[in-house]
């Protein structure tokens, strides 16, 4: 494969990131533009609070947040980690389960007809109502419960996108391989799976943010003293309003980090679907 340069991933470039290139990356449009947007957003927020003269129990300003972070830094680290790993576990299970369900529905019309109403109905149930049920069902299993809700809220888009990706595979693709005597498994590995990857990653981006919602639902609605949701809840009980807003920003930060992890994975595995800018 040495003579086949892949324009998609350049592991050597990533590994050999020189200081010069780092500088170039940091000042590139793709980094500067989002950073500028965040700064503008924070400035507008600050302006809104200052202009209205709101006290922090109406709305905390960005300038109130640093002290909240400094005061509770250790809690943020510990609870942020708890939220993060349980979200990732829930998401990982959602990926495995969602892909399996999507495969079953994508390959079998009968299964698609049979499972769709069930899936849609399940997805339509507000997960906030499921939280107390799950909490009662598995009393005390906090980690399990939280990951379970994260999983339940996030697997639906993955299952649907995989099933649509597989079922809309043009028959010619199948025929090209079948006419050569390829098995179903071969058609799946060589064509169906890679062709579905862009749809899969699109759904995964949605699922990431959903999974965070699921984790925090469990942490807030059924408090067990763990995760950023619990920290938010304690801010509420203690009337520490800057802390509540600080938690929101921390959650947004974790969401952004996980989102870009997915974007990076997408670039590696489905970068071919990206058209060069013209």
């Amino acid at each position, binding site marked *: 494969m040495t003579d086949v340069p892949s324009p998609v991933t350049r592991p050597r470039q990533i590994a050999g990131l020189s200081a010069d290139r780092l500088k170039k990356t940091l000042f590139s449009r793709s980094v500067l533009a989002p950073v500028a947007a965040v700064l503008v957003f924070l400035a507008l927020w600050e302006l809104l609070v200052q202009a209205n003269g709101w006290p922090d129990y109406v709305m905390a300003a960005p300038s109130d947040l640093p002290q909240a972070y400094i005061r509770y830094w250790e809690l943020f680290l510990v609870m942020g980690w708890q939220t993060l790993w349980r979200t990732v576990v829930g998401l990982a299970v959602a990926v495995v389960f969602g892909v399996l369900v999507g495969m079953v529905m994508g390959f079998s019309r009968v299964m698609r007809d049979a499972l769709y109403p069930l899936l849609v109905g399940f997805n339509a149930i507000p997960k906030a109502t499921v939280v107390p049920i799950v909490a009662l069902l598995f009393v005390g299993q906090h980690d399990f419960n939280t990951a379970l809700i994260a999983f339940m809220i996030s697997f639906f888009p993955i299952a649907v996108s995989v099933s649509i990706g597989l079922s809309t595979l043009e028959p010619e693709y199948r025929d*090209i391989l079948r006419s050569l005597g390829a098995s179903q498994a071969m058609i799946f590995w060589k064509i169906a799976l890679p062709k579905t990857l862009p749809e899969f990653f699109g759904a995964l981006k949605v699922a990431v943010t959903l999974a965070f919602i699921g984790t925090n639902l469990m942490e807030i609605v059924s408090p067990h003293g763990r995760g950023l949701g619990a920290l938010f809840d304690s801010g509420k009980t203690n009337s520490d309003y800057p802390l509540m807003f600080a938690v929101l920003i921390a959650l947004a930060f974790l969401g952004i980090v996980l989102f870009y992890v997915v974007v990076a994975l997408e670039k590696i595995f489905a970068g071919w679907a990206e058209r060069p800018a013209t």
Partner: protein
Amino acid sequence: MTGLIDIKGVTLAYRTDTGPLPVLDDLNISVPEGGFCAVVGPSGCGKSTLTRLIAGLMRPDEGEVWLHGARVTSPRATVGMAFQNPVLLEWRTILQNVILPLEIVPNKQTKAQREARARELLALVGLEGFEDKRPSELSGGMRQRASLCRALVHKPDVLILDEPFGALDAFTREDLWQTMHQLRAEEPFTSVLITHDLRESIFLADEVIVLSGRPATVQYRMAVPDTGPRDLDHLYTPEAAEMLNILRHQIEVAQGRAPADPEPATATPPGSAAQAMH
């Protein structure tokens, strides 16, 4: 007469909600080894169904399909296919796309041999230097050239072409016709071409078969002499015009827009050197 491809009394009906829909009715076609048979007919008359039968992707209700003296009951690796949609795999380079059949058909070739074979074919169709490009970077004509290479890379006995040039502009199409003649000179194969373009049929084929409207049966056969239009200039001779006129009339008959000839279904085009096949 037995040929490399023998279609004997093939009858087929699709099962639909409103009852069986007859598509092919007692179809008999024989293509000798190295022959090139073009099949034309009104749209929706079952031409694509015919290609799927030859490729072993479908089985007839009645009658038999024989390839190389063996009855076709399932897909066989000695067939290559190209469709109107080039169906290249977007995540592979052109070279890796062309190699695909060699990854499926059992063979003892090493990776280097496979690549050499693919490069040789790509050079033959004028795609030298594009081996490492992705399909999205190529024009429609170039993609179709790559698709032809993929259909031929495993040296199939039979090349099935289902309107491969149908979606191309007129100039590109004429270019590819000439490429087909080159390929035929370099790579011996027996071919069945489905087309809507009568000029294409007499330019490429040794025999043109006109199918009747659904359910399709052979309505008319025309032998194209060796001295037939084999380069573009010859498409504008009186002989070629005469052949085209006859075929156009036969299509009109098949569409039910002109009364059938009192003459027998097989005829020698008057005033041309063409010979009746049977």
